């Protein structure tokens, strides 16, 4: 039975030719006409750092940065540290500019992570398939790369064509990072403009990375009916040799799966993944299994199931080697990003490396050639798996109770826990033999196993192991289904939903993205998604968010992926893929402007972003955003005119972009049809907002899907969701309806009486909706 599941979706022909350079039908003649687009070139192809500054300043006027310093000091040069609380630093910088600078720096790091990943992957797949391998996303996709088309002004036709985008990203990134140097930018607004630029560079890098892997690894091209793959710790057969892949780069994992395929080892070896690598290896081969988001790392490793841990890059625990050693697992590092001090065995004979690893001569190896990783990982896993039988990875229940008695109840485990979980309480209960509170922490990743509590414990109690063991009995139930990542949104889908979205008939497109720094466990992601799916929003998910959503089942044991189709349409739950697949979300909004509204893309960023901001009711949700990549992604979607709602931890990013509903003048719009300035509404109210609770978030999300372009019917629909949810959580009508009801036709019928009463009290005056709302001036 296992065999059936592992049958690859991909056709055999490909496998026979996968190492051949495919260049049939492709003639590269240098600057051929192939990359030209049949539309006029807009004003800003390959925009410089300053080319889109005027657009940024429009956004920043409406949504000025809100700063919450995480530290009062600057420690970046040796004049300091300088205390910036009400004071300037030795270089003249003030607190606002310093916060903005820090955000730019974080976004540069994030963009570098995606761009480095994209470059590495592109280099590898060009090496595999040749520079001339055509970019063909199938007959349902003509707009293969909406971000590249808009920003570079060209259509990439081959893998080699993608290099130009990356070179451009790398150059821009260098300029942006330079601006973080001491004595450069002094204006917080200019720093923000640069951060936006970093954001769209991140967009480009992600688009390149995902297109490259879709083409090279024949991943799904956005069909929407991708297979359901196995998700959860319970899906792994511990009796087999287990290879765990962690990170974001599919190449080594793909080689492992190829080696398994080539050697007919599907029945003999388990390959599973954590974080985006998990998603991408299942896009490549649905035989792989997804353990879950990055919050599973320490728990899974501690549980001692993995024999070989293959790490590639990004979001991997940096103490992986230390943790692996505890249970006798072998670590293989596979990229320059994370070498872990391991001996470089890239050029050594695989059999020798295997023997060194098996014999424990080395704890792990750095193997920079993905091809070599496949064999070494599989063969080592096969050889050492038996050893696991004799390793006791986790303490017994009785041991836990005994150890827990040592707890001094100092309470610091709670104080250093990012979410202040009741760890101490759970330990003191455990000391009395009751492990249910520890188990409670395990459920839904309420504890996301960062290990800070252990580090602080004055008795050095292995608290994460306690929690892992206490949750152990859940593992067998952790068998879920996740729809494999689909990649892009197809043009045919956009043709269908573009109109309804722009008119408001589909109440919104909501994308759940980002990491697992959730304030109350992963279940909140799923609950929000469920609420929106019921209301027939288009829901998209990527990365850790997509995995967390898959861990939630209804009373029938079905996940949302099983209950909702994977289509990009009302009531669809589309798993776009890994973090780099986030490019397709902005991409879908761009395609709406292009396909539905016929806006040319080439070099036409500002018009496209303005269109999206005012007419495409999309909203991002990054409930657990923790990384610098997440900061860059948010900056990117924001510059395209897409707002985002974040979780409360995101206040630690130091900067949000907030609108002010009490400042009416901020919401004025230009009606491009008439050339007149007209009154608008706070739609979207914020560009980047951090909510305190899930309830606050969901109300914000539906509100942030409102757009000035909504038709009366669309506005009614959107307002009815807003009113409904607001009433549910806050017990009454929203207090700002007068801003969103332009005239009586906008009022949801079900709430007509109450709303009209409410509006009358507020002395509401009706107004007309603009025909073509915009922040730009009529040309």
């Amino acid at each position, binding site marked *: 039975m296992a065999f059936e599941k592992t049958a690859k979706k991909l056709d055999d022909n490909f496998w026979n030719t996968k190492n051949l350079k495919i260049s049939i039908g492709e003639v590269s003649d240098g600057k051929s006409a192939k990359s030209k687009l049949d539309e006029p070139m807009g004003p800003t192809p390959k925009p410089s750092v300053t080319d889109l500054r005027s657009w940024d300043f429009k956004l920043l006027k409406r949504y000025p940065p809100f*700063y919450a310093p995480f530290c009062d000091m600057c420690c970046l040069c040796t004049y300091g540290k300088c205390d910036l609380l009400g004071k300037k630093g030795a270089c003249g910088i003030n607190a606002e500019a310093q916060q903005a600078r820090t955000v730019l720096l974080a976004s540069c790091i994030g963009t570098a992570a995606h761009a480095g990943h994209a470059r590495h992957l592109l280099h590898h797949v060009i090496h595999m398939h040749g520079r001339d391998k055509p970019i063909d996303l199938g007959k349902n996709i003509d707009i293969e790369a909406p971000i590249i088309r808009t920003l570079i002004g060209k259509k990439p036709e081959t893998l080699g064509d993608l290099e130009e985008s990356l070179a451009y990203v790398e150059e821009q990134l260098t300029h942006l990072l330079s601006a973080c140097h001491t004595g450069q930018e002094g204006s917080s607004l200019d720093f923000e403009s640069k951060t936006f630029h970093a954001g769209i560079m991140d967009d480009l890098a992600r688009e390149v990375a995902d297109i490259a892997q879709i083409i090279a690894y024949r991943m799904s091209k956005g069909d929407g009916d991708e297979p359901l793959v196995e998700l959860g710790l319970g899906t792994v057969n511990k009796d087999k040799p287990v290879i765990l892949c962690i990170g974001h780069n599919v190449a080594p994992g793909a080689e492992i799966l190829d080696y398994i395929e080539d050697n007919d080892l599907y029945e003999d070896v388990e390959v599973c993944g954590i974080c985006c690598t998990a998603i991408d290896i299942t896009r490549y081969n649905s035989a792989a299994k997804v353990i879950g988001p990055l919050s599973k790392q320490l728990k899974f490793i501690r549980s001692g199931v993995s024999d070989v841990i293959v790490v590639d890059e990004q979001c991997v625990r940096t103490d992986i080697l230390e943790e692996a050693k505890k249970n006798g697992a072998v670590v293989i590092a596979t990229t320059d990003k994370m070498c872990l001090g391991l001996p470089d065995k890239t050029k050594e004979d695989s059999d020798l490396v295997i023997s060194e690893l098996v014999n424990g001569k080395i704890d792990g190896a750095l193997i920079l050639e993905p091809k070599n990783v496949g064999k070494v990982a599989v063969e080592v896993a096969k050889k050492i798996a038996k050893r696991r039988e004799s390793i006791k990875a986790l303490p017994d229940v009785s041991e836990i109770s005994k150890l827990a008695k040592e707890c001094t109840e100092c309470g610091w485990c709670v104080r250093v826990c990012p979410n202040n979980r009741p760890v101490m309480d759970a330990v003191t209960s455990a000391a009395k033999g009751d492990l249910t509170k520890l188990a409670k922490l395990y459920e839904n990743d309420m504890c996301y196993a960062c290990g800070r509590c252990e580090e602080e414990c004055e008795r050095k109690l292995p608290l994460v192991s306690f929690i892992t063991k206490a949750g152990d009995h859940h593992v067998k139930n952790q068998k879920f289904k996740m729809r494999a990542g689909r990649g892009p949104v197809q043009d045919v889908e956009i043709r269908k939903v573009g109109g309804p979205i722009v008119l408001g008939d589909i109440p919104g497109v909501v994308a759940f993205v980002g990491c697992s720094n959730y304030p109350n466990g992963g279940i909140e992601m799923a609950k929000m998604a469920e609420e929106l799916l019921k209301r027939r929003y288009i829901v998209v998910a990527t990365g850790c968010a997509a995995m967390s959503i898959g861990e939630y089942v209804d009373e029938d044991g079905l996940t949302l992926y099983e209950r909702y189709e994977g289509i990009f349409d009302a009531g669809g739950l589309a798993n776009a893929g890994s973090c780099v697949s986030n490019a397709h979300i902005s991409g879908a909004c761009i395609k709406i402007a292009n396909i539905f509204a016929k806006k040319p893309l080439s070099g036409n960023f500002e018009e496209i972003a303005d269109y999206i901001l005012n007419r495409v009711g999309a909203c991002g949700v990054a409930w657990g955003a923790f990384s610098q990549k997440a900061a860059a992604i948010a900056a990117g979607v924001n510059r395209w005119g897409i707002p985002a709602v974040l979780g409360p931890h995101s206040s630690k990013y130091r900067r949000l972009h907030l609108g002010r509903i009490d400042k009416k003048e901020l919401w004025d719009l230009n009606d491009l049809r008439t050339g007149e300035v007209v009154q608008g509404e706070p739609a979207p109210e914020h560009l980047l907002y951090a909510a*305190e609770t899930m*309830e606050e978030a969901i109300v914000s999300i539906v509100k942030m899907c409102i757009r000035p372009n909504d038709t009366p019917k669309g506005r009614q629909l959107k307002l009815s969701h807003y009113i409904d949810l607001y009433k549910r959580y806050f017990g009454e009508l929203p207090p700002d309806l007068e801003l969103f009801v332009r005239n009586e036709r906008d009022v949801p019928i079900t709430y007509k009486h109450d709303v009209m009463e409410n509006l009358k009290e507020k002395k509401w005056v009706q107004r007309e909706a603009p025909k073509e709302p915009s922040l730009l001036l009529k040309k």
Partner: protein
Amino acid sequence: MDGDRTTPWQPTVIAGPKHAMLLTPAIAKMMLKKAKRPLFVIGSLIEGDKEIVSFCKDIVENWNLPVAATGNMYKTLTENGVKSKRYGAIEIVNLLKDPEWKGVDGEGSHDLVLFIGVTYYLASQGLSSLKHFAPHLKTLTLCKFFHSNADASFPNMSDSEWIKYLEKTSKI
């Protein structure tokens, strides 16, 4: 670790040389008396604790404070007979930063803001924002956790001590 009553409850919240003054009920009352436009911000953390909610109600009523409810707190307060206005925690901080803002009741900018029940790290960030960018107002926290980014904060303390503090603070 010394100074445990005044080490930030999440200890890494330490942000620099400036940290909150230790707040006692007596000082809190003095500051409330002095304030012309105080505001009470009440967050979700105390939602489930009836006793604390009831003390908050006493503080609101005895000191006649306008209230901003954050997170999910609005409904709970309404149910407990406390009139409030709903804001996101970040949203209210953003408004408070602006000395031109008209206040929760439209009667002008606030000069003293009391906080209770906002998620610790989120409150720390909000208080940091006000510390840096709202020199026109003072911030006090009535949580049982020391908040070094406030101007003055109750210390880290036990539930029983906290209740005493709140009770004392509620009395004019």
